[in-house]
């Protein structure tokens, strides 16, 4: 039976699925009893499952994240929610030094099955400390799985896979995707270890690679490009760490052209990683790969600056046109 849901509602469906079936799942974070911190993604979960399982907390990202890690070493599957990723930086130690390291440094005997939910919440003149997309940072850390749903179904299903995974997982959702809507099939639990990037649209002329909101930009660009007679293949990365670019390499082997789109910064970022991996595997391209990213600058607050800061689908289209300017 399918159900119509938005991206935000799908996240909530994921929480509901998990908390109904797994008594060892609980949520902890700031603003979980408030209607506005996390959009419509957790509405009334505290009333449905009790405030002992949906814990609103003191203003202590570090201790609350550490506590989620600790509880997850004791048989629980804690989900710690950070309504803005920028604030999560205060909790770097339990995520990077602890959760990601315990399996390796303790000989594979213990790892916290914790899910760190980080929300990208930007735009609207919020500026440098209310806008960051730090997924590339965390994808750099061995031992931490990082997922970024771009679709409504993944918003629900990757959350479920993340929480049921025995490793620590960072689940990153983007408020700019909350109004997407889709018919969802029943949940099928999937092992996160076998979740890979997915080809959302096949095409022969150029490969567009994105994740989260950048995947949407790639899809929007592909629709426009089709009108211009350009057949773009769109790949959604979905799982940023461990990153498996097999399908991207296969795609570029076919199209010969690559545009990597990312909502993070340019230097040492995800788009650069994708291009590097494809370049290591393929000796020849029809034209040089291009990345579309944020400029290497903090998010501005001023309207005209913000307007040029975030890439849109037009920027992706222009990048594709640039790759095609070289003779086919």
């Amino acid at each position, binding site marked *: 039976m399918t159900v119509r849901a938005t991206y935000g509602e799908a996240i909530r469906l994921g929480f509901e699925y998990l908390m109904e079936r797994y008594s060892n799942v609980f949520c902890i974070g700031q603003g979980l009893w408030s209607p506005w911190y996390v959009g419509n993604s957790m509405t009334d979960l505290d009333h449905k499952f009790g405030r002992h399982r949906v814990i609103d907390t003191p203003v202590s990202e570090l*201790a609350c994240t550490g506590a989620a890690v600790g509880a997850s070493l004791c048989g629980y599957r804690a989900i710690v929610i950070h309504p803005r990723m920028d604030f999560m930086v205060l909790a770097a130690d339990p995520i990077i030094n602890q959760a990601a390291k315990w399996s390796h440094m*303790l000989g594979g005997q213990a790892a916290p099955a914790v899910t760190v939910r980080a929300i990208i919440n930007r735009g609207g003149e919020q500026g440098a400390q209310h806008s960051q997309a730090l997924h590339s940072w965390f994808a750099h850390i061995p031992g931490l799985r990082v997922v970024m749903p771009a679709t409504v179904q993944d918003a629900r299903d990757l959350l479920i896979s993340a929480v049921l995974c025995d490793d620590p997982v960072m689940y990153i959702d983007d408020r700019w995707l909350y109004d997407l809507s889709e018919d969802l099939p029943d949940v099928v639990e999937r092992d996160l270890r076998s979740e890979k990037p997915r080809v959302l649209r096949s095409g022969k002329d150029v490969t567009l690679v994105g994740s989260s909101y950048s995947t949407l930009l790639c899809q929007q660009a592909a629709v426009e490009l089709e009108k211009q007679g350009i057949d773009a293949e769109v790949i959604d990365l979905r799982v940023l760490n461990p990153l498996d670019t097999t399908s991207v390499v296969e795609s570029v082997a076919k199209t010969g052209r690559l545009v990597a789109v990312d909502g993070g910064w340019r230097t040492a970022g995800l788009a650069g990683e994708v291009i590097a991996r494809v370049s290591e595997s393929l000796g020849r391209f029809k034209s040089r790969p291009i990345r579309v990213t944020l400029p290497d600058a903090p998010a501005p607050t001023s309207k005209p600056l913000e307007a040029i800061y975030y890439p849109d689908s037009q920027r992706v289209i222009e990048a594709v046109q640039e790759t095609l300017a070289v003779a086919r």
Partner: protein
Amino acid sequence: MTDVSVTRASDLGGLANPARPLSPIDVGAYDDATLRHFLTLLFRIRFAEEKVGELVERGLAKAPCHLGIGQEAVAVGVSAALNARDRVFGGHRSHSHYLALGGDVYKLLAEVLGKLDGTSRGMGGSMHLYGRELGFYGSVPLVGATIPLAVGAGIAAQMEGQGAVGVCYFGDGATEEGVFHESMNLASAMRLPVLFVCENNLFSSHLDINLRQPSDRIGRYGDAHVVNTRSVDGNDTVAVAKAANELVTHARNGGGPGLLEAVTFRHRGHVGPKEDIDVGVRRRQSDIDAWKRVDPIPRLISALRDANRMTAGEIAQLEQSVRKEIDEAATRAEAAAYPEERALLDLVYIGGASK
């Protein structure tokens, strides 16, 4: 050595002064078997750490080894209040915390040498110990890092409702980390069953507490966070055990977290086997000598003999048998195998290889 004179009076008073008049340890509340167990553990921790020091001096252990020689009574006393359902977390100086819960000397020494038979299968070394079957959930060297993990163990224990507690050990330096205060506040606000154990040895790696804090009494933070607090002589095994038991019992019964400040002193430097005063600002040989006068092991031995609980012969025999155990464990550990090369990538994720 920089010498900085500190004129402020100690808020800890006698607890921070090894030249204070000592009252004898009162062993009256414990039976012979328990007291013998205490002494066995004190011997085991002391001799095991001396052995670790030898392994470092011989160049066999290269990783940083932080010895707690002189501080053994804290872990022995705290562990007396715990059972295997409790969850205990340590820090960089945690050999004693592991051994006091019944940890195996061979596994400890094998880990220090990076061997497969070690507590962490040779992947951790001295600073990353593990012994879940004992209730030892792990130790890591990031200062203060396990404090919120123990709070999480307290959340787990509260949800289970079986009376378990989360425990973390840390030093006085860790109380200068913000995470300590966030964690105390969170545990107190949620009335979680957590025991915070501060081994106040009056020094961070190198700096005297009086050069870092406006008071040397860590117990004052208990007032700020409304946490039940005891500050005790950390070189008196019995005093530690009694205070830990009070706080743990209270936490098990829903009374919220406890802070135990055990005032002690490490005989050796911050890291490595030497009684290094050079890395210590204001750490003098005369201080070390003075603190050896209040060494927890001779103090417990005197009390046992004065109370006719153990004879000199029994004590000597016990000491000899523990030394033999340590020597045999070290010989085995030196001969043990290292992890296989594939461990490097296979253990990144708990479920096996990374892809």
